[in-house]
């Protein structure tokens, strides 16, 4: 049997808004995926370490406090530095359109803003995350 898609849902920075991250985590789990949730207040270093340790297929980064540019960029840099390959990175939270464009150029595959459905996130992951 094919192993289910494994996703790390991570809260970066000092932001404590975790409703979205938790709802997405619960929703993806109910959609048959394996989900690891970091809880709030993680440095980019901690997030990348967790992704490596858990050997995930995808990382979902959440921030609603405006720190996303600095923090998400750092996560991508660290993934490169650690030579982590084939891990899909996506994001959610309050991310202005201009920032979303910049993040996509840096390697974030998709940004899910307020009002996104769990179904659309699950479909995205099934399409792009490499289920090993």
């Amino acid at each position, binding site marked *: 049997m094919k192993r289910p898609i494994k996703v790390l849902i991570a809260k970066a*920075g*000092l*932001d*404590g*808004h*975790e*409703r979205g991250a*938790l*709802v997405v*985590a*619960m*929703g993806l*789990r109910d959609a048959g995926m394996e*989900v690891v*949730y*970091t*809880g*709030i*207040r993680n*440095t980019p270093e901690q997030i990348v370490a967790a992704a490596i340790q858990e050997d995930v297929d995808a990382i979902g980064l959440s921030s609603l*406090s*405006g*720190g*996303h*540019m*600095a*923090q998400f960029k*750092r996560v991508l840099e660290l993934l490169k530095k650690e030579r982590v390959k084939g891990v899909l990175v996506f994001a959610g939270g*309050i991310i*202005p*359109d201009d920032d979303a464009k910049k993040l996509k150029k840096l390697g974030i595959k998709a940004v899910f*803003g*307020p*009002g996104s*459905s*769990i*179904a659309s996130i699950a479909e995205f992951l099934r399409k792009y995350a490499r289920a090993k």
Partner: protein
Amino acid sequence: MTERREEPGKFPFTRGIHTTMYRGKLWTMRQYAGFGTAQETNKRYKYLLSQGQTGLSMAFDLPTQIGYDSDDAMALGEVGRVGVAISSLADMEQVFRGIPLDKVSTSMTINATASILLALYLAVAGKEGVPWSKVSGTVQNDILKEYIARGTYIFPPLPSLRLIADIVEFCAKEVPGWNTISVGGYHMREAGCTAAQEIAFTLADGIAYVQTCVDRGLNVDDFAPRIAFFFNCHSNFLEEVAKFRAARRLWAHIMRDRFGAKNERSMMLRFHTQTAGSTLTAQQPDNNVVRTTIEALAAVLGGTQSLHTNSKDEAIALPTEESALLALRTQQIIAHESGVTAEPDPLGGSYYIESLTNQLEQQAREYLHKIDNMGGMLKAIEGGYVYKEIYRAAYEHQKTVERKEKIIVGVNEFVGDKKLVLKTQTIDPKLEPRRRRELATLRKKRNAARAEKCLATLEKAAKSSENLMPIIVDCVRSYVTVGEICKVLRRTFGEYRPSHSI
């Protein structure tokens, strides 16, 4: 339904805490604001006051709320984002430059570092020559909901409760006009809980604080009148009106029957309301003005003492000056044009409102009973019960939206093809480096020996049971920073680490 004859201004205050309500005095219009630097925040405050706002409400950035200076590595990307960055007395002086502290009341959304921010405010008042007996305001100082929903905790629950009681005890003597705790349901509701849970979890937190102060030997009527509440106002109009009524009735009984309060002011549930940020949508943002108007009206009909109306762009960013003004105008129209201020509790006596009030009271009582059986709110939080209840409710809500059992206009129905792009307020990326330079200068310029001495005194006192407030006031007067004070307290008290499983 039980036969009740309730009147406004009389126990159990279901119909409002005053006999005349808004005929006597309108609610305080208090818009939450603060961003970027102390200079920018000062400018926004002066603007809001000039437009008829009657109280200030201060938003801090996350590093300030979690006890890191702007130049700390942990502050990366967060400086000045969700509020103003305050690291030392120099920043606080700048925020309030030219604002008379004996004429305005200031509400500060601050919890883990409440004692330090209150000390900073008092130090500014002192320098301006305003006696502490003349200053008024509020610190949120409600740490329990941070463990449940908002996340800006630093220390474990017990030392955190000690800091709260230190503030309550200190203010009862030194700053009688200060509201020492604003027990909040707002964030738990934003995190997804129901109206009945919002009442129950908020009052359960309130019970824990009152018990802590009573256990310290304080007389309940000496401090309880300075405890206020902070509720959400969500989209279900009639349920929200009933929620405020039920909460007032329940708290009055708790204070009289459980804590033996004698002073009626101890039994009155006074509260601030903010309309629900989580009901705002990024899609078709103009619709948010309508949502906020309906929610604000429910808060007024529910008898709020002060109100923040959200701006239409808050689902996307910090509000622009223009949208913040529209939000304030919304309140002014309700206050001066709608006529709803003519009578206290105008919906009281409606069969539906009264029965909803009774229902919510009953449901909240059942939760409170359950929490008591767990050994109190601290145990219920530590065991993860409250957290799980809230996120279960949030997930259920999401599922009803995705199944279209609940319609959100512009999101899952009546979706327009045009997406409106809002002008968003941006924070200067050069702010962080500039703050690092400012703090380096401050540390060089201040009397280093004095700062060291203050921190040593603080560390010693933190290990004893001495009240820390006067010592923290001394620290900030010597330009010791928020981060430095918290470093000492972190060393002494330890840090809270949640266990988070889903």
